[in-house]
């Protein structure tokens, strides 16, 4: 088989298997409420870790100041309960403007 095709198929099968863990276990085994609670908390922990590493790092190093500054602007808007659109556009615009001004 074409090695690139093999990479795609192996990634697809493995990823789908990960994604099936929850739906397949659900209803087949009785998940104790404590485990359900930890799964929900775990999802939030993962998302916060993703946003923290995504905001601050790039390829194992610091991502530069423009990106975290934009995310911080978005977070401030979210804290003030601004509409979702404003949070996202505010973050991207802040970063874009800082880059335009020469910040990394």
């Amino acid at each position, binding site marked *: 088989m074409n090695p690139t095709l093999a990479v795609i198929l192996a990634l697809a099968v493995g*990823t789908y298997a990960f994604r099936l863990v929850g739906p397949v276990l659900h209803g087949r085994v009785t998940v104790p409420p404590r485990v359900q609670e930890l799964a929900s908390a775990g*999802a939030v922990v993962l998302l916060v*870790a993703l946003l923290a*590493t995504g905001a601050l790092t790039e390829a194992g190093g610091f991502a530069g100041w423009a990106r975290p500054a934009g995310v911080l602007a978005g*977070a401030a808007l*979210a804290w003030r309960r601004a509409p979702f659109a404003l949070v996202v556009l505010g973050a*991207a615009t802040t970063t874009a403007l800082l880059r335009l001004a020469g910040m990394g």
Partner: protein
Amino acid sequence: MRSVQRTTTGAAGDRSLVRDSSLVWLASGVVGVSFGAVSVAGGLPVWVPVLMSLVVYAGSAQFSAVGVLLAGGGPAAAVATGLLLNTRTAAFSLAVAEILGTGRAGRFLGAHLVTDETVAFALAQPDPARQRRAFWISGLGLFAVWNTGVLAGALAGSALGDTARYGLDAAFPAVLVALVLPILRADAAVRRCALLGAALALAATPAVPAGVPVLLALAGLLLHRRPAAAPGAAA
């Protein structure tokens, strides 16, 4: 997030879900275009990014797998890197299992739509019915937009230029902030776990392969005490 927190039902509720999803779709579409363009510009044929996006459907894993392939890292390294990044989807699928329900078609189709953004969007909703609608609206839309974007990017090549110029790399963490902030505000136990987890992930980032830091963050759950075990903390 005001519109997401408001409990609405029926068509008005769906409209607000579509409105809030559409920005995530727009940003993802542009990232998809850049994925297609980067892959083709690196020398891969058009079908590679297009097929990968349809059957793998995980942005960060796709970028890293193509990056390893283009850097000459070999097929095994490309698969290992991508799968490592995607192990987190197993935890996400557990978190949304209740939302996907027990129907065969819903579970097997819905599983493929489990992504960071869609899970965050669904969990941010106040009640189970709205969580279900949010998952499907956000998930199906994201799948359509992502794959259309990748195809367009692969065909157009690198006409868009460097997408960092648009600040899109800040948009994604900001999307996640907006979605998790209401949960973090409401739940002190989850907040403690998340802060510890993020600190662990950041500390580990320079030292371990991509995908591992986020998994290490799950150690933050050690701070998640059984409510009955801490009667003094209850209030």
